[in-house]
């Protein structure tokens, strides 16, 4: 049990070396791999998300925590044979003309830590790619990011593309990015909006009714 706590604390501190050491130690002692993930690494990220929401942590602190978590994950995941059950799949990307990715990456990270499967289609993404990816992955959620006022209108085009393809009813669409407001999200017909990545998780759960 002590190992898991140590792993989680290492994640919160963003101490990559400590997380690797504690994770390896737990593995060497034959600890349950899923417990290492859920009671250690992901529990640590839960605390990070809570601290972020509470205004104790900011982006740099979250970035080093996620780096530490990923270092632990890299040790454990190759040994896990069965597929881990997920809460649902989200396709996530930054829209065409925009290459900002930190916000998107943080949303991805928070959703994965909360048990979602995230298909990250990257930055500068065409509307057709979003549709295709949602189809191929049977995704229930789509996340659209943009940080520029010049690229924000493209979100509406993506939503229209889903209307055209007849797939709008299959997927809940969330939008985010610094200049986006709830009012804007409503005006373009999005299903959800969140102020930050930690709140995006709550919104995703709410939209899926879980």
């Amino acid at each position, binding site marked *: 049990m002590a190992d898991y706590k140590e792993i989680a604390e290492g994640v919160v501190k963003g101490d990559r070396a400590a997380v690797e050491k504690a994770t390896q130690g737990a593995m060497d002692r034959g600890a349950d791999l899923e417990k290492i993930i859920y009671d250690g690494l992901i529990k640590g990220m839960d605390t990070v998300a809570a601290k972020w929401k509470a205004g104790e942590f900011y982006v*740099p602190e979250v970035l080093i925590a996620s780096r530490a978590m990923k270092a632990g994950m890299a040790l454990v995941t190759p040994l896990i044979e069965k597929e881990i059950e997920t809460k649902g799949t989200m396709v996530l990307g930054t829209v065409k*003309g925009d290459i900002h990715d930190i916000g998107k990456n943080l949303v991805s990270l928070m959703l994965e830590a909360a048990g979602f499967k995230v298909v990250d289609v990257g930055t500068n993404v065409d509307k057709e790619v979003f549709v295709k990816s949602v189809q191929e992955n049977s995704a229930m959620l789509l996340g659209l990011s943009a940080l520029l006022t010049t690229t924000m209108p493209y979100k509406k085009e993506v939503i229209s593309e889903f209307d055209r393809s007849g797939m709008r009813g299959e997927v809940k669409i969330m939008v985010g990015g*610094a200049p986006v407001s709830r009012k804007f999200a409503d005006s373009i017909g999005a299903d959800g909006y969140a102020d930050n990545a930690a709140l995006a998780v709550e919104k995703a759960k709410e939209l899926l009714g879980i």
Partner: protein
Amino acid sequence: MNGLERLRKVINGETPDRVPVFPLVHFGTAHVGGAKIGQFSTDAATNAKCLITAAKECGYDGVHPGVDVTVEGEAVGSKVEYPEDNIPFVVENYLDTVDINKLSMPDPYKDGRMPMVIESTKICAREVGDELYICSVIMGPMNCASQIRGVERLMFDFMDQPEFAEELLDFSTDLEIMFGKALIDAGAHSLIIGEALCSPAFISPKLYRDFVVPRQKKLISALFDHGVESTFLHTCADISPIAEDYAVHTGTNGVDIDWQVDLKWLLNLPSIKEAGTAARGNLDPAATLLTGTPDEVLQESKALIEQCMDTKKFILCSGCDMSPASLPENASAMVEASKRFGVYEN
């Protein structure tokens, strides 16, 4: 009273004829001037022509010669891509190792698009410098460093090797002092200092205070020593937790305030009143200015004017950059609001 006089009055603590309107429009002017954003971002004559055309057509009080956030990073060596009709962006940041010696100071008259911004400033100053406020665009230490190093790398640097981050910020500060001086020499009355990354939506107030404020202060002080009339420090999202650091301790006499902040509250903070800092803000650039109708813009502008005009330090503006789709009608509606609701009696 023309736009130049109107903004000078507010900056100098005097009463203008009506509330100045000086929206954050850069790329938004390209289409009004009949150009694509790519051309606007690379050609000085096009840049100046579009900025002036839009200001005159909409009737607002100043222009922002300059382009995107990558100019300084590009001049140092970062690789930039220019889409035909979208905003340029860095595809490869120059400083990929923790080696400050890899950096050499660019020449603002030779390197990257710095000469183009200087030239656009000169054209604007020559063409409209006696009627519109010329506020050229530079980055602050933080944004400049991020375009050289990469945003995510810089964030890790603050946590992993803060001494290196400080060296990079110092280099960036010196670079911006040099670039800013060149723009003042070219005829800029004012400079807008882009520092989006300093927002508490991104870094902690402590990190901002410890690492950035002293360098912004150094930059701003050097610009005033060189004769600039005003500096508009620009940071996005809710800056309430750092309001005094941002609007007072940096020594700036102008700030840009995004839509999330209660602008009336900020303008009436005792320390900000005492410092006499002017604030531009803060219509929602997305919900109001992008998707709203001119009438909605008029009404929201009216509400803001009524809340803020009595401070006489208020400039009606978008909270952040206006989308090209917001021009010209919604920018014109802001001017209309000032004429109808923002007139000072005396």
